[in-house]
């Protein structure tokens, strides 16, 4: 008998009587999800600001020091920001080392925890871009900010095959005496712009 069969048969034999699937409670909604989202995104160590439209986003990005001062930068947000690195010209993701800042479009934001859902399709040809970059900028539309994770899973698309992740703030660790340090392995800063 293969290990697969052996394991499945052992699990079947050991299984308790069927337990029905429970209903999950409704997640609390916020009266002002965008306001709450901005607060949460700051509370998890990031920066967050609301801009009225695409022009406002462009201006805010240009005014952001980590973007303005970077020499190696890339924006995958359609029509916003001028990239100096062409991801399509890179064949090996290891060559992304040294990338200073990446601006990426998010699909939705979650007010309760400041997380942004970034589908693999927002990452261009190399999914490492979000974690290897020194600084990260995320963009999400105000209409796409939801209250909680349960709502988020009701809305987001999981591409199959594919990839996607929630990002909530910059990379961090508290493994040394529980002192919070920003910039463990991934982005040293995370700025989220909410548009609209």
């Amino acid at each position, binding site marked *: 008998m293969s290990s697969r069969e052996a394991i499945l048969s052992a699990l079947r034999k050991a299984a*308790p009587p069927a337990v029905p699937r429970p209903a999950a409670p409704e997640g609390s909604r916020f009266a002002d999800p965008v306001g709450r989202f901005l607060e949460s995104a700051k509370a998890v160590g990031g920066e967050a600001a609301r801009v009225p439209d695409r022009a406002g986003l462009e201006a805010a990005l240009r005014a952001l020091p980590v973007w303005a001062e970077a020499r190696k930068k890339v924006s995958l947000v359609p029509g916003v920001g001028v990239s100096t690195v062409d991801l399509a010209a890179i064949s090996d993701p290891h060559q992304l080392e040294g990338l200073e800042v990446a601006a990426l479009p998010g699909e939705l934001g979650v007010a309760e925890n400041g997380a942004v859902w970034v589908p693999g399709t927002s990452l261009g*040809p190399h999914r490492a871009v979000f974690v290897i970059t020194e600084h990260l900028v995320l963009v999400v539309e105000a209409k796409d900010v939801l209250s909680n994770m349960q709502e988020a899973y009701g809305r987001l698309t999981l591409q199959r095959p594919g990839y996607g992740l929630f990002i909530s703030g910059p990379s961090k660790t508290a493994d040394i005496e529980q002192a919070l340090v920003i910039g463990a392995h991934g982005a040293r800063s995370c700025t989220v712009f909410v548009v609209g």
Partner: protein
Amino acid sequence: MNTFHADRAAAFLEDAPHAHWYDTAVWFMRSKRDHAAGAVAEWERLRDAASGLKAHALSDLAGYLEEFEKNAKANGIQVHWARDGEEHNRIVHEILAARGVKLVAKSKSMLTEECGLNPYLESRGLEIVDTDLGERIVQLAGEPPSHIVMPAIHRKKESIGELFHEKLQTPAGLSDPKTLTEAARQHLRKKFLGAQAGLSGVNFALADTGGIVVVTNEGNADMGTSLPPLHVASMGVEKVIPRAADLGVFLRLLARSATGQPISTYTTHFHGPLRGGELHVVIVDNGRSQILAREPFRRSLACIRCGACLNTCPVYRRSGGYSYSYLIPGPIGSVLGPLRDAEKHGSLPFASSLCGSCSDVCPVQIDLHHQLLALREEIVGKGLLPWTKRLGMKLAGLVLRHPTLYRLAAALARRTLRSAPGLVQIGPAATWTRQRDLPEPPRQSFRELWKREGA
């Protein structure tokens, strides 16, 4: 090695200031958890739902694993099955060896600790770098993790500075967490760029979509699995949940219970390999089906490894992770350890006050303190209790069953303790009186008083 919890705890407590510091540090995590849980109005109902979802999944693990496998394969993920740790290690090694891998960037996985994967691969010539900062610290120190979420929580920053000076050639005398973390970042970035494969655990496997989810704060799992073309993920059979949407419940509980964060920084959903690469998932039983078969202990398989039961446990906080003979310390480890090896880990269910705080904070409502009590019965039944405890219990049983003997013993105790109170500070009784005085014994028993007053 002495596996007896009380002896190891005594050694830990010899350094009283460090023990106090440890207690405070771990309690800080518990306080953050309370704050985060209190901010979610539907917290208790979320726990009900998470517990129910896990009970539901555990009642049909085979079905959900088959569904997961079918969907994962459709996503281009290669699925392997391992009956035990040895088979798991062999599968992982074969995958790595066949592709000429020499350096592996590994992110945290308690399952691979359980299987002894690192020494297995190292003895076959591979270099395995643990990339979670806390895990890298204990790896460099040659220690196991002392906590499942904060592996190096027992170490002071000065000792980490010394370790880095010795192993990573940082300047001597560093103790600033920021500087130390930066040094580790630079060191590990080189490893990430040089690794030919990434290894990770699995926080959740999704049956309906055939994906796996890995959660980190540091981004180490993402670095490790986004650069090299090969990713091998190891999961216990109990990690499968029915639907991706169920994550809406579990993720609201996990980080809040673990560290008091509203969510971890990176929650990554893998539904296929890196472009042009390979993703392998190894599904491991290693005794889990036997636990599933045992009704009183089944629910321990619902654990999502948040560590909340460790942080709240008065015994864990005051005895440290290394007092536990099993690799997972605290209440959940004191259940899982003896279920694996009752003889080796037989003292662990007694390393509890049965206060029930672990069960109260558990995000998936595992009845930990009931399981610990049930395990005590088993261990007594198997004759695994140390003879001192067996004899003590026998004597107590005898005295309590016979009123005359009881009266005689009580009279003797009153008299002896009055004339020679120092007796309780030596021998086995000393463990009770080291940090507290006995009250002065009364001259008469209640029975004698009752008689004299002629009620």
